[in-house]
């Protein structure tokens, strides 16, 4: 007999009935999206809806000497015009710092900037009109006089501090962190081989296909604010709207219906969105702002933009002794609220060298202000940088040692039996599977055969390259990520499960759905835990007025944290259902179980009572139950990971490319990924999420870069000019798994959402450099454009 009840799903030596967990079940909620019947913010219709457009700074840094909105205000359809001071009456500014990022500093930021623009695109005034088109018409009539100020665009210039962007802060350094173990210099002194290289990473952005969208609806009679928002973290936003608009938290409700992609773009506080909410309060009517694509490029958070030097010390036997890192990154004029822009650099320091067993490590990051758009946490947060630095320099060292890159990695990856493990930067790893993953990858891709083929083709003038990238990833963060620093961001998530009278199970969960399949996997977990078929489960997410309190979607945490809450709630509901069944049937509770929507005899599986009948009795005829018995067919459970600061995952990717050494074009031939995200709840969903992540990582490696002029003007801020991967350039991507469940939870799931993006840029870069090896050329700048490749080859 299968044991369904209280064991962890990964309990050794026990055949636990996992139900739908591990099955590739199609997502129930995908059907509406397939018919164009989803509900994104811009699809909602409201009476009296007003539209807000923003007058944005054309300059990267300038003082607004005079602003005249009177002509705009007089245009047809214009309802109101506001400058920064007017909106500030209703919306308090914020300063994005956190207590655990020692020394981080940032100036106050207003919903609408007052007098000074610190980057191109910063909102300086708002025009509210009956239609978006009328608002944009009026925008043409805003009169502004500007005094241009010195522009700091280059991060090294910013660091040098010749011109300080925010004089009150004293310098341009937002945050710095230095870390060192005690014998780094000794390790480098005794090394037989030291390799060093400098890498640069372009700025890029998320390009969610649905742009940032918000519809704020203030009800003056109730003094309630209902915000329909395309966001990843509705409870965080509820708290922020409450505190900054001075409305009691209980009076703020944030609803996110369908969200058209997030990738970390939609987990931050944006000034124009705060202004929209404030204006709804000011005008006492619903107000909508949907960023158009040009605004998205200018104002959605950007990410990356690092210049980093990395050094590795090895023995001649091929043992890595130490890593050393100097990272410099630029974040625009403000640290982004409330998560701050110090996290990415901090992660680069935490994670560099991550998969390897060296004992000595020194790392530092400096995070500086510039007059470009703000940058902050985007999918992978620091990982793509750290993995590329690590895996790039590991390949250089392998070459100097005359070792095959796979073999060099095998000698240095942390052994699979070394856990729990403390990494020199202070990270704790519960259990990783680097060697198992490496072996699986090499077999999957037939590494040896590809190497033979590569050598044969080289003789024919065909330059193929194979790149490997091993990695670790932060998932399932505990309060150590944000909460300890004072951010009101929940590391805990919850789920409420209710048996309805018809035998249906309703699941309300605080993790949100951005398309990754939250609602689908929660339905799988709930159905499995309760004992119903998946068609009997409805999942509701994204409404602070309805769901338990929780963090939402970020840091690869939804399945691991929210899923465990659903599992525990499902088990509790099952137990409560069996209590009711015991009374109805007059049976011995131990004899009963729930299978296939029915209470059954645990041993014979003979049907005793349908859940629909049980629901009817519990809700409509409780008079037939014992007088002292109260059924509880709604239960709520929460889960917070606490044993480790983060539940690390590991994985390894490989990329096969062909470089045309005459044109510098890179053709991606194939990509492989072996990932260990613990319990795989739905292989099909995980695989496609990994592939999507890999493709975003490929975009970073080959195409995507926000290019700024020296004057701080974004030069490619449209979909025509900013290149993202399209289906024709992308290869087939083979995904496989090693499953090492986390023992912290009964579900055992770790995160998977960012792994693809974390590892792919390194794999692609290493593949290109492997292809260029015969020419002794290396590309160390991402994206590796044809121009950069030809420059590396000395052809231009």
């Amino acid at each position, binding site marked *: 007999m299968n044991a369904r009840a209280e064991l962890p799903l990964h309990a050794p030596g026990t055949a636990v009935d996992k139900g739908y967990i591990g099955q590739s079940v199609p997502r129930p909620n995908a059907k509406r999206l397939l018919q164009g019947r989803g509900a994104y913010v811009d699809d909602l219709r409201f009476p009296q809806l007003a539209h807000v457009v923003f007058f944005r700074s054309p300059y990267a840094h300038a003082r607004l000497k005079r602003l005249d909105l009177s002509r705009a205000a007089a245009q047809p359809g214009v309802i109101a015009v506001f400058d920064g001071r007017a909106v500030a009456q209703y919306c308090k500014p914020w300063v994005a710092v956190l207590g655990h990022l020692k020394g981080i500093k940032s100036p106050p930021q207003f919903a609408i900037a007052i007098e000074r623009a610190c980057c191109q695109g910063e909102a300086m005034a708002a025009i509210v009109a009956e239609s978006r088109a009328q608002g944009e018409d009026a925008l043409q009539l805003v009169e502004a006089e500007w005094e241009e100020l010195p522009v700091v665009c280059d991060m090294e210039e910013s660091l040098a501090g010749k011109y300080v962007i925010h004089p009150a802060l004293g310098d341009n350094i937002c945050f710095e962190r230095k870390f060192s173990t005690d014998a780094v210099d000794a390790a480098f002194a005794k090394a037989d081989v030291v390799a060093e290289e400098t890498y640069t990473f372009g700025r890029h952005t998320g390009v969610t296909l649905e742009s940032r969208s918000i519809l704020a609806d203030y009800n003056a009679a109730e003094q309630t604010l209902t915000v329909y928002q395309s966001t990843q973290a509705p409870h965080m936003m509820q708290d922020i709207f409450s505190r900054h608009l001075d409305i009691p938290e209980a009076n703020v409700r944030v609803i996110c219906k369908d969200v058209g992609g997030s990738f970390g773009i939609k987990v931050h506080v944006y000034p124009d969105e705060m202004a929209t909410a404030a204006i709804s309060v000011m005008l006492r009517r619903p107000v909508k702002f949907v960023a158009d694509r040009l605004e998205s490029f200018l104002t959605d958070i950007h990410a990356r933009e690092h210049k980093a030097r990395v050094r590795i010390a090895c023995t001649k036997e091929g043992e890595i002794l130490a890593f050393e890192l100097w990272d410099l990154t630029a974040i625009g004029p403000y640290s982004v609220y409330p998560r701050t822009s110090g996290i990415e650099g901090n992660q680069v320091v935490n994670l560099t060298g991550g998969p390897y067993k060296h004992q000595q490590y020194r790392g530092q990051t400096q995070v500086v202000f510039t007059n470009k758009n703000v940058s902050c946490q985007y999918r992978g947060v620091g990982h793509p940088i750290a993995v590329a630095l690590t895996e790039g320099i590991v390949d250089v060292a392998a070459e100097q040692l005359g070792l095959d890159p796979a073999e060099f990695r095998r000698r240095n990856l942390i052994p699979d039996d070394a856990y729990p493990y403390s990494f020199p930067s202070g990270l704790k790893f519960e259990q990783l599977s680097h060697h198992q993953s490496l072996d699986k990858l090499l077999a999957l891709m037939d590494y040896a055969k590809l190497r033979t083929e590569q050598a044969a083709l080289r003789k024919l003038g065909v330059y193929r390259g194979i790149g490997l990238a091993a990695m670790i990833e932060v998932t399932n963060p505990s309060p150590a990520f944000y909460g300890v620093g004072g951010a009101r961001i929940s590391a805990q998530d919850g789920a409420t499960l209710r048996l309805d009278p018809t035998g249906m199970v309703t699941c309300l969960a605080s993790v949100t759905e951005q398309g990754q399949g939250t609602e689908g996997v929660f339905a799988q977990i709930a159905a499995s835990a309760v004992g119903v078929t998946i068609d009997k489960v409805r999942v509701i997410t994204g409404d602070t007025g309805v769901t338990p309190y929780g963090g939402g979607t970020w840091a690869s945490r939804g399945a691991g944290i929210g899923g465990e809450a659903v599992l525990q709630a499902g088990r509790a509901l099952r137990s409560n259902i069996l209590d009711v069944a015991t009374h109805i049937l007059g049976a011995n509770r131990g004899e009963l179980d729930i299978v296939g929507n029915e209470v059954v005899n645990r041993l014979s599986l003979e049907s005793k009572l349908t859940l629909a009948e049980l629901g009817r009795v519990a809700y409509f005829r409780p008079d037939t139950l014992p007088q002292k018995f109260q059924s509880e067919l709604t239960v709520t459970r929460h889960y917070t990971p606490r044993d480790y600061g983060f539940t690390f995952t590991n994985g390894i990717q490989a990329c096969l490319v062909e470089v045309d050494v005459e044109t510098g074009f890179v053709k991606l031939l194939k990509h492989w990924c072996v990932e260990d995200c613990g319990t795989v709840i739905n292989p099909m969903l995980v695989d496609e*999420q990994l592939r999507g*992540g890999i493709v975003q990582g490929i975009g970073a490696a080959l195409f995507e870069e926000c290019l700024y002029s020296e004057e701080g003007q974004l030069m490619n801020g449209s*979909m025509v000019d900013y290149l993202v991967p*399209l289906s024709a350039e992308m290869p087939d991507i083979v995904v496989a798994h090693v499953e090492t469940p986390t023992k912290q939870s009964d579900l055992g799931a770790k995160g998977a959402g960012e792994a693809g993006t974390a590892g792919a840029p390194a794999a692609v870069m290493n593949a290109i450099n492997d292809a260029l090896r015969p020419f002794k050329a290396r590309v160390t700048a991402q994206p590796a454009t044809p121009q950069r490749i030809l420059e590396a080859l000395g052809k231009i």
Partner: protein
Amino acid sequence: MNATWGHASNMDETLLTTLTVNGRTVTRRISARQHLSDFLRDELGLTGAHTGCEHGVCGACTVRVDGLAVRGCLMLAVQADGCKVDTIEGLSDSGEIADLQGAFHRRNALQCGFCTPGMLMSAQELLSSRPDAKRDEIRAHMSGNYCRCTGYHAIVDAIEEVAASRREGRK
């Protein structure tokens, strides 16, 4: 037509326009500058075509006009006067692309779903005009539709599967 640019009041000139949308004839006074996507979304409440870029690149607003896949953001609504326009809602209700929708669902060839209506429109155009399309041709044809979530692999799989099953059905 008065072409005085920059003067807001002239922007609202309207034209009486009649078109057939998902088999139903509609007549509206349409602002001359309104593009077809906004007309479908704002005037008719057909929100399945999504405006992802409004400069003709992302493909999320793809609809069918007189049988051809068209970027709804690059065509003015008044240009559709006398035309037959089909949207994702119409194709869903008629059952014309039920097999594509089924394959996308089974293979999880969508995540956030914002690109999906346009993807399905383009896929249907490809399979209607080139039923023998191979994997690389599918990849090339679908390159007018951005997807930021999936990595495209499952989308290509789904279209390939439907191409094969339709070929099978024709035999």
